């Protein structure tokens, strides 16, 4: 089934496109190329990238990581802004906008908060969602937001990590552990209370009493300022389930990348989330010659055995090699399609060079929309 990307990009009811997939498959580049194409089709687009390669950022004219959408010059028709997520800055802003300056200062200087906002598993995903919510709320400026997802251990983290982190921060454990005096035993039974006694004891041995004190202060300060972390995460999650959102899964024709893609597709189905299709980057294109690999290799061997035509022998071998690569890729892709027949797939030929400028992104955008790619 072919993917009609332009139909998605120009659909006025679509306001969010999420590009997801495992690391190294070209997610960020795909997000940028989609953004550029949508803008030139007349949309007002903001691309939220997480960790773009320097060159790609330069291609869009982004020079600094400043957590604010910057307009990209040289766009005709609609408009394109792009930004890089600074998770710590985003978290700081959430704190600042929900507390008075004095309390904000206290939270920002808390060592536990500093660890939480810069190195916690899930913070990047949480803040990507947070930023997405903010951008979406600013609907007057953008009618389409394209999000690149963080390079997580697995693609599902983008969906799950925020809620996980939210539950953790709102959780019972964090409260009990940080307020033992407030009644660790109350209501949880004597046995459990005993367990928590050991728990606190072991934790302070492992982490040191200061860490627990920092966590306690953080929880106390944050409690009075804003509602639950989990609640916020759930609100953005609802945004993703909205029919105004479309997921685009990105993969390469490799086993691991396709497995991740399959996990993600299954999850979207399970949660009835809108899936646009699968973009299969870096496929090997081979011009049709009507010959089989065996014929090509036999011919090359004949030339080599006769000691003549080394150039042509090499060319025939090269052609045979590419056919073999393409065949393996097609086999992997066919297996994905067999398991997920309703997922539209768009193959994108391998480009010899990385993207250096808008022209390069535009070329990828054209390939994304090209329904004639013969693969």
């Amino acid at each position, binding site marked *: 089934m072919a993917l009609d990307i332009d139909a998605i990009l120009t659909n006025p009811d679509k306001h969010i496109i999420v590009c997801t997939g*495992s*690391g*190294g*498959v070209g997610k960020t580049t795909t997000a940028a190329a989609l953004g550029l194409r949508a803008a030139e089709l007349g949309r007002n687009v903001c691309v939220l990238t997480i*960790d773009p*390669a*320097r*060159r790609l950022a330069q291609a869009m004219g982004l020079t600094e990581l400043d957590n604010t959408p910057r307009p990209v010059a040289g766009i005709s028709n609609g408009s394109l802004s792009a930004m890089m997520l600074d998770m710590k800055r985003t978290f700081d802003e959430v704190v600042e906008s929900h507390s008075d300056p004095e309390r904000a200062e206290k939270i920002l200087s808390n*060592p536990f908060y500093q*660890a939480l906002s810069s*190195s*916690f*598993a899930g913070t990047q995903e949480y803040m990507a969602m947070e930023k997405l919510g903010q951008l979406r709320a600013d609907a007057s400026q953008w009618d389409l937001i394209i999000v690149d997802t963080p390079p997580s*251990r*697995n693609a599902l983290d983008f969906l799950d990590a925020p809620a996980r982190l939210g539950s953790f921060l709102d959780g019972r*454990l*964090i409260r009990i*552990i940080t307020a033992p005096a407030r009644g660790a035993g109350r209501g949880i039974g004597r046995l*459990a209370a005993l*367990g*928590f006694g*050991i*728990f606190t004891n*072991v*934790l302070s*041995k*492992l*982490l*040191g009493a200061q*860490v627990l004190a920092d966590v306690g202060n953080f929880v106390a300060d944050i409690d009075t300022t804003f509602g639950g972390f989990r609640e916020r995460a759930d609100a953005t999650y609802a945004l993703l389930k909205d029919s105004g959102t479309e997921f685009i899964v990105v993969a*390469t024709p*490799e086993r691991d*990348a396709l497995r991740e893609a399959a996990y993600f597709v299954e999850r979207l189905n399970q949660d009835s989330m809108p899936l646009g299709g699968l973009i299969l980057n870096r496929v090997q294109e*081979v*011009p*049709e*010659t*009507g010959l089989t690999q065996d*014929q090509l290799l036999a*011919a*090359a061997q*004949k*030339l080599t055995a006769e000691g*003549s*035509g080394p*150039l*042509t*022998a090499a*060319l*025939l071998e*090269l052609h045979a*090699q*590419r056919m*073999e*690569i393409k065949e*393996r890729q097609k086999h*992997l892709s066919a297996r994905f399609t067999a398991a997920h027949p309703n997922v539209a797939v768009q193959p994108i030929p391998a480009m*010899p*060079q*990385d993207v250096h400028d808008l022209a390069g992104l535009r070329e990828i955008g054209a390939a994304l929309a090209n329904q004639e790619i013969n693969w």
Partner: protein
Amino acid sequence: MHYWPKATLHVVTGKGGTGKTTVAAALAIALAKDGHRAILMEVEGRQGIAQLFDTPPLPYEERKIAVAPGGGEVWALAIDTEDALLDYLEMFYKLRRAGSALKKMGAVDFATTIAPGLRDVLLTGKACEVVKRKEKKQDNAYDYVILDAPPTGRITRFLNVNGEVSGLAKVGPIKTHADSVMNVIASEQTAIHVVTLLEEMPVQETLDGVNELAAAGLPVGGIFVNMTRPPQLDSQQRAMAIAGELPKSEIESEISQSGLTPTTQLIAALITEASDHAERVELEETELERLISRGLPIFVLPLLPGGIDLGALYELAAIMSDSGIGGE
């Protein structure tokens, strides 16, 4: 030539999609060659090793998963953070039973979430415990420990456990534990290898990662350039292909000579593919130059057209052996 003669611990990192786990597995086979015992460890709960070796998911238990040429053995272990923490509690506090209760309460998860550095210390700590068995001449010791580590972007933070726990504990058992881990990781006993593709982005990330590791005083081993396509054309032919000057009539007559029909379609296909290939090879060579100028040992591994299966791992391991990895 014998690389990293004193290294027992081989840490393998690389950008996503570069084949880090494949290289780690092939390296384990190459090191185990000729009667050695090697253990391959993973830390990210992905079960990538089990998939590569086509075995059921690995438990938190050392298992023999393959043999190496010349009577070597490859073992595997998927390190689980919770179990590593229980090991640790047992080792330092004799608290295994309490530990199990804590696990049920979700406390282990809690502790490693609240202090992400703790998780890394536990994972690297487990690897170092296995490394140290060799010195102690224990029965379950291995000659080599190969760690399929987190990707390049996170590797320095992951290995530099002293920095990580400094915010946690200035004294006490965690600090002692981190110090003993650092004694292994920042020494000749360790070699950290980076896997890359010959493309601009992964090469840049590799060079950045290598510099970061070096700046943190961590011993970089080698760079493994993965999935290269061996040049089918020599440099002169490539230059002609890029310039569009391949001798068409010569190719046409040679095709006839080979027994095939020289259709215009075939000739055009061969010429297009040649220039595409040549362009790619030239770019790869530029990237390879950038890597070479960093002055580290470089190992070039081919893209295997049939993909990665168990046989392919042995093929890659043989290439590593031929390049001087492993052996006495």
